[in-house]
């Protein structure tokens, strides 16, 4: 379990996170949603140790992550950021193999096979020997996703994924394929925290949802509990209507009206 307790963060004098406590269990997909500037990416950064909070602790399986060796941590959890650029002309398979670099032995056939599995999971097998710079924006996003999937060995060597908007550049087909692939990983015991802008994707795929606004965690629970009309209207400032997902009526479906709530 990755757990943060009472985490607060101030950036440039502005409070970004205020007393956030949250945990992600193995086998669970937690969707982090909220308006722009709510602190979603910062929360992910704090959970991944790329940002050090002003107060609070983050524990990975009961151990304070500040005391864990960087490489050991990289074997346990992988983080997908929003805008990663690669400075040289790496190929997709070379990029994904970098995800295995915290592990020993590296660059072995087994290691390459793992990278190939990750590439297949995001549907890039036919693009594996192309340069990352030659891909479309959506393909590049999936290539980096494959890299972090390889880093946790598709759940066989690592246990947690922290993903910042992994489907923001995907068309509907790939949004569904990528999230379904992630769901499969949770079934294999991986714990995933994923920042999503599309509330309906979060409602469809996540086991629980954390609603963040103004640096505070307002609610956390199953989609039906968190995604209510009153809560969304107050968090986003536009009127929210909740119905049933036509493809899976057990899940909520959100629509917004431009009229302010």
């Amino acid at each position: 379990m990755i757990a943060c307790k009472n985490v607060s963060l101030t950036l440039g004098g502005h409070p970004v996170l205020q007393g956030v406590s949250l945990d992600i269990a193995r086998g669970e997909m937690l969707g982090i949603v909220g308006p722009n500037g709510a602190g979603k990416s910062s929360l992910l950064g704090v959970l991944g140790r790329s940002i050090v909070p002003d107060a609070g602790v983050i524990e990975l399986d009961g151990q304070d992550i500040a005391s864990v060796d960087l490489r050991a941590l990289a074997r346990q959890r992988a983080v997908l950021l929003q805008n990663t650029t690669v400075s040289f002309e790496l190929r997709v398979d070379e990029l994904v193999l970098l995800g295995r670099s915290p592990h020993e032995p590296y660059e072995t056939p087994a290691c390459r096979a793992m990278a190939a599995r990750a590439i297949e999971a995001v549907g890039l097998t036919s693009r594996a020997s192309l340069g990352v710079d030659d891909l479309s924006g959506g393909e590049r996003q999936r290539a980096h996703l494959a890299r972090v999937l390889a880093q946790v060995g598709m759940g066989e060597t690592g246990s947690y994924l922290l993903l910042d908007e992994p489907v923001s550049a995907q068309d509907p087909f790939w949004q569904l394929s990528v999230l379904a692939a992630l769901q499969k990983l949770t079934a294999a015991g991986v714990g995933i925290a994923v920042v999503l802008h599309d509330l309906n994707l979060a409602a469809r795929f996540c086991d629980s949802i954390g609603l963040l606004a103004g640096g505070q965690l307002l609610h956390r629970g199953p989609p039906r509990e968190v995604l209510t009309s009153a809560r969304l209207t107050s968090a986003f400032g536009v009127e929210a209507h909740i119905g049933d997902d036509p493809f899976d009526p057990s899940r909520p479906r959100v629509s917004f009206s431009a009229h302010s709530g």
Partner: protein
Amino acid sequence: MSAPARRSDPRFVALLLGGVLLAALAAALLVGPSDVAVSRVFAILFQPSGTSAEHTIVWSLRFPRACLAMFVGAGLGAGGAAAQGLFRNPLADPGLVGVSAGATLGAAATIVLGAPLLAALAPWARSAALPIGAFFAGALTTFAVVRLGGRPGRSSTATVLLAGVAINAFAGAIVGFLSHVASDSELRNLTFWILGGFGGASWTKVVFTAPLVTLAIWMLSRSARALDIFSMGELDAGLTGIDVLALRRRVVVALALAVGASVAAAGLVGFVGLLVPHFTRLWVGPGHRALIPLSALGGACLVVFADSLARVLIAPAELPVGLLTALVGAPFFLHLLRRELHT
């Protein structure tokens, strides 16, 4: 749809470049203003002691000069690959980003300000003082450029190169000042050395340059995997288990060793660190484990060959070798810069 990015087998490229290096070394032993027959050159090579003029030409002039050119080229080639990895920028040539200028300043300061101290030292210690001065000033300037132009998220081509322009101008001004206050003999030393080239090659210089360059290449090769991961940027490298600050320190020290030793031995031989890693990367791909040693090998080939050319083009006079590399390198740099700014 674009074609798959092809990569040649690094072992094949290593064999090929090794062959080219042997040929370049052989050529360097054979050519020169005075005629020594091919058969004589190889006969003399196997008898290290002798007193004939031909023997002196081969063993005291051509052979140490070819060896020095080889190590300087290796240092500059590997140093270029490392600088580009460190700045995450294919245009980061050690000369352009100011590392060489810093090393030059260090060596010049050693010659002029350290003159009283140097005079008291044994000749071999004098030979050691120059690379040491070049190393420390080179390391200092590299850290300065990293701080000025290599900050996270802002490490654009423009900022890195502009930081280099500033450092180059500053170091140039101080070297100018030093040559102004230098005594006649110091000035002769300084000028001879700033012009660059391998005219002053000796076995003593080889003995001081070879271990430093070898050590630097070894250190850089050990950081190869970390440099690969670093190509994704500081943040992602950290998340993938790399201690970014430690990596940076290691690479800066090794880079300053390689470039400092090269500059101390031969003055400024520009653009080798830009040309060689660029073509090596096109050949074997951007992975540093192959790129660093192969850039060293390629740099050695280029500089040994360029120095032979410099000796014969206007024989019996010789061209400064840095002039030749700049003649080829500068237009090529402009070409790369144009491409970089248009994408």
